[in-house]
């Protein structure tokens, strides 16, 4: 018994019976209903679902940005509060501040959290060096390519050393080719830094190619429709190579059917 217990890792994120409602003069909208989900340490979870199913709402709750809900959201066993330092949030498009240099952008989170010191700064600098942006530290965002900007945004999120990364349609503003390359880079960086990640996307292929597990949500009010453990046979498990795996198309088709898209 004891052995079996220790095999099952303690989940990093636990969502239990989460229900989120939005109030408006026109009425009440239930965005998520009785949603339960566990994310283990080091896992990469992709969340897909029909548009308006509450994918982003789920991320916002885990990020501590939405605080009115019923149910429980725990990270490392503790309830999420506003301004939790456990999560790093990657918004849609990079949202680098044009008036700050790349270096100042990277330090943004540390500045907000009043946590700028030699140790945190050298950690942030190390990230810039490791991921090829040290030469651009004093450049402004407009001087960087789309892919480099996305990397800078990821480093900004990693600089505060969060337990878990939340990517909210993070690549949707990029053109298709850049998007594939950036997804590759981001996946590798997250793996190298040993982080847990939740990716919300409307792109099924992106979810399959990047994730260990793909969670499919139902139409609004969103709850879990199915969870697919992604196992691909390919030489390298990078998002680009994953797309060549024979199982890729099978996963794609079954998720596509579940999403039941009507236009």
């Amino acid at each position: 018994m004891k052995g079996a217990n220790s095999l099952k890792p303690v989940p990093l994120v636990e969502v239990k019976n989460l229900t989120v409602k939005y109030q408006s003069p026109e009425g009440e909208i239930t965005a998520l209903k009785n949603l339960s989900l566990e994310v283990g340490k080091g896992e990469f979870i992709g969340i897909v679902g029909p548009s308006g199913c509450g994918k982003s709402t789920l991320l916002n709750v885990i990020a501590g940005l939405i605080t009115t809900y019923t149910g429980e959201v725990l990270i490392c066993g503790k309830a999420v509060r506003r301004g939790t330092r456990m999560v790093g949030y990657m918004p849609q498009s990079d949202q680098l501040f044009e008036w700050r240099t790349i270096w100042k952008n990277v330090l943004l989170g540390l500045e907000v959290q009043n946590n700028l010191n030699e140790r945190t700064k050298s950690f942030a600098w190390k990230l810039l060096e490791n991921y090829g942006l040290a030469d651009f530290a004093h450049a402004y965002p407009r001087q960087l390519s789309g892919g480099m900007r996305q990397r800078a945004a990821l480093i900004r999120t990693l600089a505060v050393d969060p337990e878990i990364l939340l990517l909210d349609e993070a690549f949707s503003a990029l053109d298709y080719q850049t998007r594939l390359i950036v997804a590759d880079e981001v996946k590798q960086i997250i793996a190298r830094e040993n982080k847990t990640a939740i990716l919300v996307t409307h792109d099924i292929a992106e979810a399959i190619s990047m994730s260990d597990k793909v969670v499919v949500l139902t139409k609004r009010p969103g709850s879990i429709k199915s969870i697919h453990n992604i196992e691909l046979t390919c030489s390298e498990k990078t998002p680009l190579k994953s797309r060549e795996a024979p199982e890729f198309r099978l996963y794609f088709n079954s998720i596509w059917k579940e999403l039941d898209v009507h236009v």
Partner: protein
Amino acid sequence: MSMSRPQQLVNISEEHFLYLQERKKYRFRVILGRIVLLAALLALWEIAGNLRWIDPFITSQPSRIIKTLALLHSEGALYQHIGITVLETVAGFILGTIGGTCIAIALWWSKFLSDVLDPYLVILNSLPKIALGPILIVWIGNGPPAIIAMALLISLIVAVLGVYSGFVQVEPEKIRLLQAFGASKGQILQMVILPASIPTIISALKINVGLSWVGVIVGEFLVSRAGLGYLIVYGGQVFRLDLVMTSVIILAAAAALMYQAVVLLEKHLSRQ
């Protein structure tokens, strides 16, 4: 090609060289056109006066304006008048901008406050502030403070609305990013709202420069005993159109210079 090329243009293609030449020529023609237009207007004005097509006593004349300028210069009063008006304008402009930005911050900070004040701002914005001139004179008295108040009144509401609209246009995703890091409202204001709004604030400044001049000149029309607005009104009353025209031209020059100062400030800020 007989044209000899300057040293730094050696490494460019023939087409690009021709394009640059063409561009240079065009810009030269524009500047020349501006100068010719000015010279033609001045000459026509002068000749029309000399040949009595128009009455220089009523329309004045470039030569008379120069004489008036020289006279005011030798009397020494000219610089005092210019100084007073410029000072009043700068004071109204700076107070309007700072005050407007502060009120805009308050409106951004409290949705309740902005909802409560909304109809008042709409009415104040549509009211011609000049109508309040007599009230200001009674309340504040005859003098520069009333004039500055006039300039402030005219520019303040526009500044509030301009800056506030800049604040609410800041991308919500940028604010959410800071919130996810755990930022307080004060941090959001300081780290994203204000820096992201600098372009809007600058364009509000540009409008405010013009409005402050309107406020000051109207104020001087109503109350003052000094300044360019006073010279214009006084000149009109005693039928010295030379004085009126001279003052208007000085006013135009001063307003253009001040506008250029704001443009320089904009360039400086956007380079940072």
